[in-house]
Protein backbone atom coordinates (compact mmCIF):
# COMPACT_ATOMS: atom_id res chain seq x y z
CA UNK A 1 0.00 0.00 0.00
CA UNK A 2 2.78 2.42 0.77
CA UNK A 3 4.35 1.70 -2.60
CA UNK A 4 1.10 2.59 -4.28
CA UNK A 5 1.01 5.73 -2.23
CA UNK A 6 4.50 6.84 -3.17
CA UNK A 7 3.75 6.56 -6.84
CA UNK A 8 0.50 8.43 -6.55
CA UNK A 9 1.50 11.73 -5.11
CA UNK A 10 -1.68 13.23 -3.87
CA UNK A 11 -2.27 16.89 -3.20
CA UNK A 12 -5.61 17.36 -1.53
CA UNK A 13 -6.36 19.55 1.42
CA UNK A 14 -8.22 19.40 4.65
CA UNK A 15 -9.43 21.26 7.61
CA UNK A 16 -7.49 19.51 10.32
CA UNK A 17 -10.39 19.44 12.74
CA UNK A 18 -13.76 19.89 11.10
CA UNK A 19 -13.46 19.06 7.44
CA UNK A 20 -11.41 15.93 7.65
CA UNK A 21 -14.29 13.53 7.58
CA UNK A 22 -15.93 15.15 4.60
CA UNK A 23 -12.70 15.31 2.65
CA UNK A 24 -11.83 11.80 3.61
CA UNK A 25 -15.19 10.37 2.70
CA UNK A 26 -14.99 11.94 -0.71
CA UNK A 27 -11.47 10.67 -1.26
CA UNK A 28 -12.53 7.20 -0.21
CA UNK A 29 -15.54 7.26 -2.48
CA UNK A 30 -13.19 8.26 -5.24
CA UNK A 31 -11.10 5.20 -4.47
CA UNK A 32 -8.08 7.12 -3.34
CA UNK A 33 -6.17 4.55 -1.40
CA UNK A 34 -3.36 6.77 -0.11
CA UNK A 35 -5.72 8.73 2.08
CA UNK A 36 -6.41 5.62 4.12
CA UNK A 37 -3.26 6.61 5.93
CA UNK A 38 -3.77 9.77 7.87
CA UNK A 39 -1.44 11.73 10.10
CA UNK A 40 -2.73 12.01 13.65
CA UNK A 41 -0.93 14.12 16.18
CA UNK A 42 -0.49 17.63 17.47
CA UNK A 43 -1.29 19.10 14.05
CA UNK A 44 -4.90 18.01 14.34
CA UNK A 45 -5.48 20.54 17.09
CA UNK A 46 -5.50 23.57 14.79
CA UNK A 47 -8.29 24.40 12.38
CA UNK A 48 -6.38 25.92 9.52
CA UNK A 49 -6.74 24.55 6.02
CA UNK A 50 -3.58 23.08 4.61
CA UNK A 51 -2.71 21.02 1.61
CA UNK A 52 -2.39 17.32 2.03
CA UNK A 53 0.68 16.03 0.26
CA UNK A 54 0.54 12.48 1.49
CA UNK A 55 2.61 12.77 4.60
CA UNK A 56 3.86 15.60 6.76
CA UNK A 57 7.08 13.73 7.27
CA UNK A 58 8.24 12.73 3.82
CA UNK A 59 7.25 15.83 1.83
CA UNK A 60 8.51 19.34 2.60
CA UNK A 61 5.81 21.99 3.06
CA UNK A 62 4.90 23.92 -0.09
CA UNK A 63 4.87 27.71 -0.18
CA UNK A 64 2.03 29.74 -1.70
CA UNK A 65 3.83 30.22 -5.01
CA UNK A 66 4.38 26.50 -5.39
CA UNK A 67 0.80 25.73 -4.42
CA UNK A 68 -0.53 28.22 -6.94
CA UNK A 69 1.67 26.70 -9.63
CA UNK A 70 0.22 23.31 -8.76
CA UNK A 71 -3.44 24.26 -8.49
CA UNK A 72 -3.39 26.57 -11.52
CA UNK A 73 -1.72 23.68 -13.35
CA UNK A 74 1.52 25.33 -14.38
CA UNK A 75 3.61 22.69 -12.67
CA UNK A 76 3.02 19.28 -14.21
CA UNK A 77 6.40 17.71 -13.72
CA UNK A 78 5.28 14.77 -11.65
CA UNK A 79 5.32 11.81 -13.96
CA UNK A 80 2.89 9.92 -11.80
CA UNK A 81 1.45 12.70 -9.68
CA UNK A 82 -2.16 13.77 -9.51
CA UNK A 83 -3.79 16.79 -7.96
CA UNK A 84 -7.12 16.21 -6.23
CA UNK A 85 -9.60 18.87 -5.23
CA UNK A 86 -13.03 19.04 -3.68
CA UNK A 87 -16.10 20.26 -5.60
CA UNK A 88 -16.34 24.00 -6.23
CA UNK A 89 -18.96 24.74 -3.60
CA UNK A 90 -17.46 22.60 -0.85
CA UNK A 91 -16.69 24.87 2.14
CA UNK A 92 -13.14 23.48 2.32
CA UNK A 93 -12.50 24.26 -1.32
CA UNK A 94 -13.63 27.84 -0.76
CA UNK A 95 -11.48 28.22 2.35
CA UNK A 96 -8.48 26.62 0.68
CA UNK A 97 -8.69 28.97 -2.31
CA UNK A 98 -9.06 32.06 -0.17
CA UNK A 99 -6.85 31.30 2.82
CA UNK A 100 -4.08 29.25 1.31
CA UNK A 101 -3.90 30.30 -2.34
CA UNK A 102 -5.15 33.86 -1.82
CA UNK A 103 -7.57 33.68 -4.77
CA UNK A 104 -11.34 33.29 -5.21
CA UNK A 105 -12.61 29.79 -5.97
CA UNK A 106 -14.16 30.90 -9.25
CA UNK A 107 -10.69 31.92 -10.47
CA UNK A 108 -9.61 28.29 -10.18
CA UNK A 109 -12.74 27.02 -11.90
CA UNK A 110 -12.45 29.49 -14.76
CA UNK A 111 -8.77 28.64 -15.30
CA UNK A 112 -9.54 24.91 -15.34
CA UNK A 113 -12.51 25.31 -17.69
CA UNK A 114 -10.50 27.42 -20.09
CA UNK A 115 -7.77 24.77 -20.10
CA UNK A 116 -10.17 21.95 -20.84
CA UNK A 117 -12.04 23.67 -23.66
CA UNK A 118 -8.95 25.16 -25.28
CA UNK A 119 -6.67 22.12 -25.00
CA UNK A 120 -4.00 23.83 -22.95
CA UNK A 121 -3.88 21.83 -19.72
CA UNK A 122 -5.26 19.05 -17.56
CA UNK A 123 -7.24 20.28 -14.55
CA UNK A 124 -7.11 18.63 -11.12
CA UNK A 125 -9.35 15.67 -10.46
CA UNK A 126 -12.44 16.50 -8.42
CA UNK A 127 -13.10 13.92 -5.73
Amino acid at each position, binding site marked *: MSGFYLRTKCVAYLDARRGRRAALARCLLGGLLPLLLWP*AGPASADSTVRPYTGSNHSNPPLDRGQLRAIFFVRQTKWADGRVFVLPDRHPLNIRFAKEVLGVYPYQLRSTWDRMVYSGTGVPPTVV
Partner: protein
Amino acid sequence: MYTPIVNPQYQSGAATALAFALLSHPLGARAIDLGFGDFQAHGFLSQGYTYTSANDFFGNSQGDGSLEFTELGLNVLGHPFPNLLLAAQGIYRDTAGSDEEDFRLDYANIDYSLPIGESSTLGVRAGRVKNPFGLYSEARDAIWTRPSVLLPQSIYFDGIGLRSPELSSDGGLLYGRHQFGDHAFTAEFLVGEPQLQTARDFITGFPDAQGRFDGRPVFIGRAGYEWREGRFRLLFSAVDLDKDFDPNSRDVLPGNIKLFAPWVSAQVNLEEWSFTAEYLRISFDRTGIFPALPPDPTARNLLVDNTSESYYLQAQYRFAPGWSALARYDAFFANADDHDGSATARGTGLPRHRFFAKDLTFGLRWEFVENWLVAAEDHNIDGTGWLSPIDNPGINDPLLARGASDGHWDLFTLMFSYRFYPFVCNGRTIHR
Protein backbone atom coordinates in the same frame (compact mmCIF):
# COMPACT_ATOMS: atom_id res chain seq x y z
CA MET B 1 1.95 7.99 14.32
CA TYR B 2 -0.41 6.92 11.51
CA THR B 3 -3.88 5.74 12.35
CA PRO B 4 -5.92 3.72 9.90
CA ILE B 5 -9.45 4.91 9.47
CA VAL B 6 -11.80 3.13 11.83
CA ASN B 7 -14.81 5.41 11.73
CA PRO B 8 -17.68 2.96 11.09
CA GLN B 9 -19.54 5.60 9.11
CA TYR B 10 -17.06 5.24 6.30
CA GLN B 11 -16.21 1.59 6.50
CA SER B 12 -18.44 0.53 3.63
CA GLY B 13 -17.03 3.31 1.47
CA ALA B 14 -13.51 2.27 2.39
CA ALA B 15 -14.25 -1.36 1.64
CA THR B 16 -15.73 -0.48 -1.74
CA ALA B 17 -12.78 1.73 -2.57
CA LEU B 18 -10.35 -0.93 -1.50
CA ALA B 19 -12.07 -3.62 -3.55
CA PHE B 20 -12.26 -1.34 -6.54
CA ALA B 21 -8.63 -0.38 -6.20
CA LEU B 22 -7.51 -3.99 -5.84
CA LEU B 23 -9.54 -5.07 -8.84
CA SER B 24 -8.14 -2.36 -11.00
CA HIS B 25 -4.66 -2.26 -9.58
CA PRO B 26 -2.88 -4.31 -12.27
CA LEU B 27 -4.33 -2.09 -14.97
CA GLY B 28 -3.69 0.97 -12.86
CA ALA B 29 -0.09 0.04 -12.25
CA ARG B 30 0.50 -0.53 -15.94
CA ALA B 31 -1.08 2.79 -16.74
CA ILE B 32 1.17 4.52 -14.23
CA ASP B 33 4.26 2.84 -15.62
CA LEU B 34 3.35 3.97 -19.10
CA GLY B 35 2.79 7.46 -17.77
CA PHE B 36 -0.79 7.65 -19.04
CA GLY B 37 -2.09 8.39 -15.59
CA ASP B 38 -3.78 11.73 -16.04
CA PHE B 39 -5.69 11.40 -19.32
CA GLN B 40 -9.18 12.83 -19.00
CA ALA B 41 -12.21 13.16 -21.21
CA HIS B 42 -14.74 15.98 -20.96
CA GLY B 43 -17.80 16.97 -22.89
CA PHE B 44 -20.71 19.37 -23.00
CA LEU B 45 -24.13 19.58 -24.59
CA SER B 46 -25.81 22.94 -24.93
CA GLN B 47 -29.15 23.80 -26.46
CA GLY B 48 -30.27 27.35 -26.99
CA TYR B 49 -33.50 29.10 -27.87
CA THR B 50 -33.52 32.49 -29.60
CA TYR B 51 -36.40 34.90 -30.04
CA THR B 52 -36.15 38.21 -31.86
CA SER B 53 -38.72 40.97 -32.20
CA ALA B 54 -37.37 41.78 -35.68
CA ASN B 55 -34.54 40.48 -37.88
CA ASP B 56 -33.35 36.86 -37.69
CA PHE B 57 -30.54 35.57 -35.52
CA PHE B 58 -29.58 31.86 -35.47
CA GLY B 59 -32.44 30.77 -37.74
CA ASN B 60 -36.03 32.00 -38.06
CA SER B 61 -36.05 33.58 -34.64
CA GLN B 62 -39.09 35.82 -35.16
CA GLY B 63 -42.57 34.59 -34.26
CA ASP B 64 -42.14 31.40 -32.26
CA GLY B 65 -38.38 31.73 -31.98
CA SER B 66 -35.62 29.38 -33.14
CA LEU B 67 -34.04 26.29 -31.63
CA GLU B 68 -31.20 26.29 -34.13
CA PHE B 69 -28.53 26.89 -31.52
CA THR B 70 -26.82 23.65 -30.56
CA GLU B 71 -23.28 23.18 -29.30
CA LEU B 72 -21.76 19.79 -28.48
CA GLY B 73 -18.14 19.16 -27.64
CA LEU B 74 -16.00 16.21 -26.65
CA ASN B 75 -12.34 16.37 -25.75
CA VAL B 76 -9.53 14.19 -24.48
CA LEU B 77 -6.41 15.53 -22.85
CA GLY B 78 -3.50 14.24 -20.84
CA HIS B 79 0.25 14.00 -20.35
CA PRO B 80 2.00 10.97 -21.86
CA PHE B 81 5.18 12.48 -20.35
CA PRO B 82 5.38 15.04 -17.57
CA ASN B 83 5.86 18.18 -19.68
CA LEU B 84 4.17 16.92 -22.82
CA LEU B 85 0.47 17.55 -23.25
CA LEU B 86 -1.75 15.96 -25.89
CA ALA B 87 -5.23 17.40 -26.40
CA ALA B 88 -7.98 17.19 -29.00
CA GLN B 89 -11.56 18.41 -29.16
CA GLY B 90 -14.31 17.77 -31.67
CA ILE B 91 -17.29 20.11 -31.84
CA TYR B 92 -20.72 19.88 -33.40
CA ARG B 93 -22.29 23.28 -33.77
CA ASP B 94 -25.42 24.46 -35.52
CA THR B 95 -26.53 28.08 -35.52
CA ALA B 96 -28.57 28.04 -38.75
CA GLY B 97 -27.19 30.10 -41.66
CA SER B 98 -24.26 31.49 -39.73
CA ASP B 99 -22.75 28.06 -38.94
CA GLU B 100 -23.55 25.11 -41.18
CA GLU B 101 -20.26 23.31 -40.67
CA ASP B 102 -21.75 20.73 -38.23
CA PHE B 103 -18.84 18.59 -37.02
CA ARG B 104 -15.36 20.06 -36.93
CA LEU B 105 -12.02 19.45 -35.29
CA ASP B 106 -11.78 22.36 -32.89
CA TYR B 107 -8.26 21.77 -31.62
CA ALA B 108 -5.72 18.99 -31.78
CA ASN B 109 -2.40 20.00 -30.37
CA ILE B 110 0.76 18.76 -28.78
CA ASP B 111 2.30 21.01 -26.17
CA TYR B 112 5.74 20.90 -24.59
CA SER B 113 6.57 23.18 -21.70
CA LEU B 114 9.90 23.72 -20.03
CA PRO B 115 10.34 25.34 -16.63
CA ILE B 116 13.14 27.94 -16.63
CA GLY B 117 14.31 28.27 -13.06
CA GLU B 118 11.75 28.62 -10.31
CA SER B 119 9.53 31.28 -11.80
CA SER B 120 9.46 31.07 -15.59
CA THR B 121 8.05 28.73 -18.18
CA LEU B 122 8.64 28.47 -21.91
CA GLY B 123 6.52 26.29 -24.13
CA VAL B 124 5.65 25.38 -27.67
CA ARG B 125 2.30 24.16 -28.98
CA ALA B 126 1.71 22.76 -32.45
CA GLY B 127 -1.11 21.34 -34.51
CA ARG B 128 -4.54 22.90 -34.69
CA VAL B 129 -4.24 25.41 -31.89
CA LYS B 130 -6.75 27.90 -30.51
CA ASN B 131 -5.94 31.48 -31.49
CA PRO B 132 -4.51 33.44 -28.58
CA PHE B 133 -6.44 36.65 -28.51
CA GLY B 134 -8.76 38.46 -26.22
CA LEU B 135 -10.28 37.07 -23.06
CA TYR B 136 -12.88 34.59 -24.32
CA SER B 137 -11.70 33.52 -27.74
CA GLU B 138 -10.03 30.22 -26.95
CA ALA B 139 -12.89 28.35 -25.34
CA ARG B 140 -15.81 30.32 -26.75
CA ASP B 141 -18.01 27.44 -27.90
CA ALA B 142 -18.55 26.10 -24.39
CA ILE B 143 -21.00 28.27 -22.47
CA TRP B 144 -19.13 27.21 -19.32
CA THR B 145 -16.34 29.62 -20.20
CA ARG B 146 -18.56 32.38 -21.56
CA PRO B 147 -19.96 35.08 -19.29
CA SER B 148 -23.29 34.96 -21.16
CA VAL B 149 -25.25 32.91 -23.69
CA LEU B 150 -23.93 35.14 -26.47
CA LEU B 151 -20.50 36.67 -26.26
CA PRO B 152 -20.35 40.40 -27.07
CA GLN B 153 -21.07 40.28 -30.80
CA SER B 154 -19.08 43.40 -31.61
CA ILE B 155 -15.88 41.45 -30.98
CA TYR B 156 -16.75 37.74 -30.89
CA PHE B 157 -18.75 37.66 -34.11
CA ASP B 158 -21.15 34.72 -34.36
CA GLY B 159 -23.36 35.89 -37.22
CA ILE B 160 -20.81 36.94 -39.82
CA GLY B 161 -17.86 35.34 -41.57
CA LEU B 162 -15.17 36.56 -39.23
CA ARG B 163 -16.14 33.93 -36.65
CA SER B 164 -14.28 30.98 -38.12
CA PRO B 165 -10.87 32.66 -38.59
CA GLU B 166 -11.14 33.84 -34.99
CA LEU B 167 -11.30 30.27 -33.70
CA SER B 168 -8.15 28.30 -34.41
CA SER B 169 -5.16 27.99 -36.73
CA ASP B 170 -3.07 25.16 -38.08
CA GLY B 171 0.45 26.02 -37.05
CA GLY B 172 2.66 26.58 -34.06
CA LEU B 173 2.60 28.77 -31.01
CA LEU B 174 5.37 29.81 -28.63
CA TYR B 175 4.42 30.90 -25.14
CA GLY B 176 6.15 32.10 -22.03
CA ARG B 177 5.32 33.15 -18.52
CA HIS B 178 7.36 34.86 -15.87
CA GLN B 179 6.09 35.04 -12.32
CA PHE B 180 7.36 36.95 -9.33
CA GLY B 181 5.23 36.88 -6.23
CA ASP B 182 1.70 37.96 -7.10
CA HIS B 183 2.72 39.32 -10.50
CA ALA B 184 2.99 37.47 -13.78
CA PHE B 185 3.84 38.44 -17.34
CA THR B 186 2.64 36.24 -20.18
CA ALA B 187 3.32 36.22 -23.91
CA GLU B 188 2.16 34.08 -26.83
CA PHE B 189 3.03 34.22 -30.49
CA LEU B 190 1.33 32.15 -33.17
CA VAL B 191 2.33 31.52 -36.78
CA GLY B 192 -0.32 29.58 -38.63
CA GLU B 193 -3.12 29.30 -41.14
CA PRO B 194 -6.50 30.30 -39.72
CA GLN B 195 -9.68 28.94 -41.26
CA LEU B 196 -10.13 31.59 -43.94
CA GLN B 197 -12.10 29.56 -46.48
CA THR B 198 -15.44 29.99 -44.74
CA ALA B 199 -14.72 33.70 -44.35
CA ARG B 200 -13.88 34.48 -48.00
CA ASP B 201 -16.68 37.04 -48.34
CA PHE B 202 -15.65 38.87 -45.21
CA ILE B 203 -11.92 38.87 -45.97
CA THR B 204 -12.24 39.84 -49.64
CA GLY B 205 -15.20 42.15 -49.12
CA PHE B 206 -16.73 40.60 -52.26
CA PRO B 207 -20.04 38.70 -52.01
CA ASP B 208 -19.71 34.99 -52.79
CA ALA B 209 -16.04 35.29 -53.78
CA GLN B 210 -14.71 31.92 -54.98
CA GLY B 211 -10.99 31.28 -54.91
CA ARG B 212 -8.09 30.64 -52.61
CA PHE B 213 -5.68 32.52 -50.41
CA ASP B 214 -1.89 32.43 -50.80
CA GLY B 215 0.97 34.11 -49.04
CA ARG B 216 2.64 34.09 -45.71
CA PRO B 217 0.99 32.60 -42.63
CA VAL B 218 -0.92 34.80 -40.22
CA PHE B 219 0.79 36.18 -37.12
CA ILE B 220 -1.15 36.44 -33.88
CA GLY B 221 0.38 37.71 -30.68
CA ARG B 222 -0.83 38.31 -27.17
CA ALA B 223 1.04 39.74 -24.20
CA GLY B 224 -0.31 40.40 -20.78
CA TYR B 225 0.10 41.13 -17.12
CA GLU B 226 -1.86 39.52 -14.34
CA TRP B 227 -1.99 39.99 -10.60
CA ARG B 228 -2.93 37.17 -8.26
CA GLU B 229 -3.82 34.65 -10.95
CA GLY B 230 -6.16 37.04 -12.72
CA ARG B 231 -7.75 39.12 -9.99
CA PHE B 232 -6.59 41.84 -12.30
CA ARG B 233 -5.47 41.21 -15.85
CA LEU B 234 -4.51 43.32 -18.81
CA LEU B 235 -3.96 41.83 -22.28
CA PHE B 236 -2.77 43.22 -25.60
CA SER B 237 -3.46 41.09 -28.65
CA ALA B 238 -2.83 41.67 -32.34
CA VAL B 239 -3.62 39.85 -35.58
CA ASP B 240 -1.55 40.51 -38.71
CA LEU B 241 -2.75 38.97 -41.97
CA ASP B 242 -1.33 39.53 -45.46
CA LYS B 243 -2.88 37.30 -48.13
CA ASP B 244 -3.09 37.23 -51.89
CA PHE B 245 -6.43 36.16 -53.29
CA ASP B 246 -6.52 33.98 -56.38
CA PRO B 247 -10.11 33.91 -57.68
CA ASN B 248 -11.78 31.07 -59.55
CA SER B 249 -14.15 33.29 -61.47
CA ARG B 250 -13.73 36.27 -63.79
CA ASP B 251 -16.14 38.34 -61.72
CA VAL B 252 -13.42 38.90 -59.16
CA LEU B 253 -9.91 40.21 -59.84
CA PRO B 254 -6.81 38.78 -58.22
CA GLY B 255 -5.82 40.93 -55.30
CA ASN B 256 -4.22 41.35 -51.93
CA ILE B 257 -5.73 41.77 -48.48
CA LYS B 258 -3.93 43.11 -45.47
CA LEU B 259 -5.66 43.01 -42.11
CA PHE B 260 -4.34 44.36 -38.85
CA ALA B 261 -6.33 44.11 -35.65
CA PRO B 262 -5.09 45.40 -32.29
CA TRP B 263 -7.09 44.32 -29.27
CA VAL B 264 -6.95 45.44 -25.62
CA SER B 265 -8.61 43.52 -22.78
CA ALA B 266 -8.87 44.35 -19.10
CA GLN B 267 -10.57 42.54 -16.27
CA VAL B 268 -10.97 43.05 -12.53
CA ASN B 269 -12.21 40.07 -10.51
CA LEU B 270 -13.52 40.83 -7.04
CA GLU B 271 -15.21 38.35 -4.75
CA GLU B 272 -18.76 39.06 -5.93
CA TRP B 273 -18.15 41.32 -8.90
CA SER B 274 -16.20 41.05 -12.12
CA PHE B 275 -15.69 43.99 -14.46
CA THR B 276 -14.50 43.40 -18.00
CA ALA B 277 -13.76 45.63 -20.97
CA GLU B 278 -12.32 44.92 -24.40
CA TYR B 279 -11.56 47.18 -27.33
CA LEU B 280 -10.83 46.07 -30.89
CA ARG B 281 -10.09 47.78 -34.19
CA ILE B 282 -9.96 45.84 -37.46
CA SER B 283 -8.23 47.58 -40.36
CA PHE B 284 -8.49 46.27 -43.91
CA ASP B 285 -6.30 47.33 -46.79
CA ARG B 286 -7.43 45.66 -50.03
CA THR B 287 -5.99 46.01 -53.54
CA GLY B 288 -7.40 44.44 -56.71
CA ILE B 289 -10.38 42.13 -56.17
CA PHE B 290 -13.09 44.62 -57.23
CA PRO B 291 -13.67 45.06 -60.99
CA ALA B 292 -15.61 48.23 -60.23
CA LEU B 293 -15.71 50.42 -57.15
CA PRO B 294 -18.49 52.73 -56.01
CA PRO B 295 -17.94 56.38 -56.95
CA ASP B 296 -18.66 57.63 -53.43
CA PRO B 297 -15.40 57.89 -51.48
CA THR B 298 -16.90 56.65 -48.17
CA ALA B 299 -18.50 53.63 -49.84
CA ARG B 300 -15.27 52.96 -51.74
CA ASN B 301 -13.20 53.14 -48.59
CA LEU B 302 -15.51 50.68 -46.86
CA LEU B 303 -14.27 48.09 -49.36
CA VAL B 304 -10.69 49.20 -49.88
CA ASP B 305 -9.30 50.86 -46.81
CA ASN B 306 -11.54 50.70 -43.77
CA THR B 307 -11.22 50.47 -40.01
CA SER B 308 -14.00 49.17 -37.77
CA GLU B 309 -14.23 49.79 -34.05
CA SER B 310 -15.69 47.53 -31.34
CA TYR B 311 -15.82 47.64 -27.59
CA TYR B 312 -17.86 46.50 -24.63
CA LEU B 313 -18.11 47.11 -20.91
CA GLN B 314 -19.43 44.29 -18.77
CA ALA B 315 -20.27 43.73 -15.10
CA GLN B 316 -21.00 40.37 -13.53
CA TYR B 317 -22.44 39.96 -10.05
CA ARG B 318 -22.30 36.63 -8.22
CA PHE B 319 -25.10 37.26 -5.76
CA ALA B 320 -25.70 33.72 -4.48
CA PRO B 321 -23.96 30.35 -4.82
CA GLY B 322 -24.49 29.18 -8.39
CA TRP B 323 -26.16 32.43 -9.48
CA SER B 324 -24.81 35.37 -11.40
CA ALA B 325 -26.24 38.41 -13.11
CA LEU B 326 -24.75 40.28 -16.02
CA ALA B 327 -25.07 43.74 -17.51
CA ARG B 328 -23.22 44.77 -20.64
CA TYR B 329 -23.02 47.56 -23.15
CA ASP B 330 -21.54 46.39 -26.44
CA ALA B 331 -20.92 48.60 -29.46
CA PHE B 332 -19.78 47.97 -33.02
CA PHE B 333 -19.07 50.57 -35.68
CA ALA B 334 -18.34 49.32 -39.19
CA ASN B 335 -16.49 52.55 -39.94
CA ALA B 336 -14.59 54.01 -37.01
CA ASP B 337 -14.83 57.48 -38.58
CA ASP B 338 -18.60 57.29 -39.18
CA HIS B 339 -20.20 56.08 -35.95
CA ASP B 340 -23.78 56.97 -36.93
CA GLY B 341 -23.33 55.35 -40.35
CA SER B 342 -24.77 58.37 -42.20
CA ALA B 343 -21.89 58.93 -44.63
CA THR B 344 -21.57 55.22 -45.38
CA ALA B 345 -25.33 54.93 -45.83
CA ARG B 346 -25.36 57.78 -48.35
CA GLY B 347 -22.57 56.17 -50.31
CA THR B 348 -23.97 52.66 -50.36
CA GLY B 349 -27.73 53.21 -50.42
CA LEU B 350 -28.12 50.90 -47.42
CA PRO B 351 -29.85 52.01 -44.22
CA ARG B 352 -27.69 53.68 -41.61
CA HIS B 353 -28.30 50.93 -39.06
CA ARG B 354 -26.36 48.42 -41.20
CA PHE B 355 -23.15 50.13 -40.13
CA PHE B 356 -23.36 49.93 -36.37
CA ALA B 357 -24.89 47.89 -33.55
CA LYS B 358 -25.27 49.02 -29.95
CA ASP B 359 -26.43 46.22 -27.72
CA LEU B 360 -27.53 46.64 -24.10
CA THR B 361 -27.71 43.22 -22.44
CA PHE B 362 -29.06 42.01 -19.11
CA GLY B 363 -28.62 38.35 -18.24
CA LEU B 364 -29.04 35.80 -15.48
CA ARG B 365 -27.25 32.50 -15.05
CA TRP B 366 -27.93 29.65 -12.64
CA GLU B 367 -25.91 26.48 -12.14
CA PHE B 368 -28.82 24.63 -10.56
CA VAL B 369 -26.99 21.34 -10.06
CA GLU B 370 -23.27 20.78 -10.35
CA ASN B 371 -22.42 20.64 -14.08
CA TRP B 372 -25.88 21.83 -15.20
CA LEU B 373 -26.71 25.41 -16.01
CA VAL B 374 -29.42 27.55 -17.48
CA ALA B 375 -28.76 31.08 -18.67
CA ALA B 376 -31.03 33.69 -20.18
CA GLU B 377 -30.53 37.22 -21.39
CA ASP B 378 -32.25 40.07 -23.13
CA HIS B 379 -30.47 42.17 -25.72
CA ASN B 380 -31.91 45.54 -26.62
CA ILE B 381 -30.20 46.42 -29.88
CA ASP B 382 -29.94 49.57 -31.93
CA GLY B 383 -28.42 48.67 -35.32
CA THR B 384 -27.94 45.60 -37.48
CA GLY B 385 -24.17 45.76 -38.03
CA TRP B 386 -23.40 42.15 -37.07
CA LEU B 387 -26.49 40.43 -38.48
CA SER B 388 -25.93 37.38 -40.66
CA PRO B 389 -26.68 38.10 -44.35
CA ILE B 390 -27.46 34.39 -44.78
CA ASP B 391 -30.18 34.39 -42.11
CA ASN B 392 -31.36 37.81 -43.33
CA PRO B 393 -31.34 37.75 -47.15
CA GLY B 394 -31.61 41.14 -48.73
CA ILE B 395 -29.96 43.14 -45.95
CA ASN B 396 -27.01 44.00 -48.19
CA ASP B 397 -29.20 44.95 -51.16
CA PRO B 398 -30.04 48.69 -51.29
CA LEU B 399 -33.45 47.89 -52.81
CA LEU B 400 -34.44 45.28 -50.23
CA ALA B 401 -32.55 46.20 -47.06
CA ARG B 402 -35.15 48.56 -45.60
CA GLY B 403 -37.85 45.91 -45.83
CA ALA B 404 -35.57 43.07 -44.78
CA SER B 405 -34.25 44.60 -41.56
CA ASP B 406 -35.28 46.74 -38.65
CA GLY B 407 -32.79 48.96 -36.88
CA HIS B 408 -34.38 48.69 -33.42
CA TRP B 409 -34.92 45.18 -32.16
CA ASP B 410 -34.82 42.90 -29.13
CA LEU B 411 -33.17 39.54 -28.88
CA PHE B 412 -33.97 37.08 -26.11
CA THR B 413 -31.91 33.95 -25.71
CA LEU B 414 -32.05 31.02 -23.31
CA MET B 415 -29.61 28.14 -23.03
CA PHE B 416 -29.45 24.88 -21.11
CA SER B 417 -26.14 23.11 -20.80
CA TYR B 418 -24.82 19.94 -19.26
CA ARG B 419 -21.19 18.98 -19.04
CA PHE B 420 -19.63 15.75 -18.00
CA TYR B 421 -16.34 14.72 -16.53
CA PRO B 422 -15.79 11.00 -16.89
CA PHE B 423 -12.41 10.99 -15.25
CA VAL B 424 -10.02 8.28 -16.32
CA CYS B 425 -7.79 7.96 -13.31
CA ASN B 426 -5.06 5.34 -13.25
CA GLY B 427 -7.27 2.86 -15.07
CA ARG B 428 -10.32 3.59 -12.92
CA THR B 429 -13.17 5.56 -14.35
CA ILE B 430 -15.02 7.77 -11.94
CA HIS B 431 -18.29 8.94 -13.44
CA ARG B 432 -19.44 12.20 -12.04
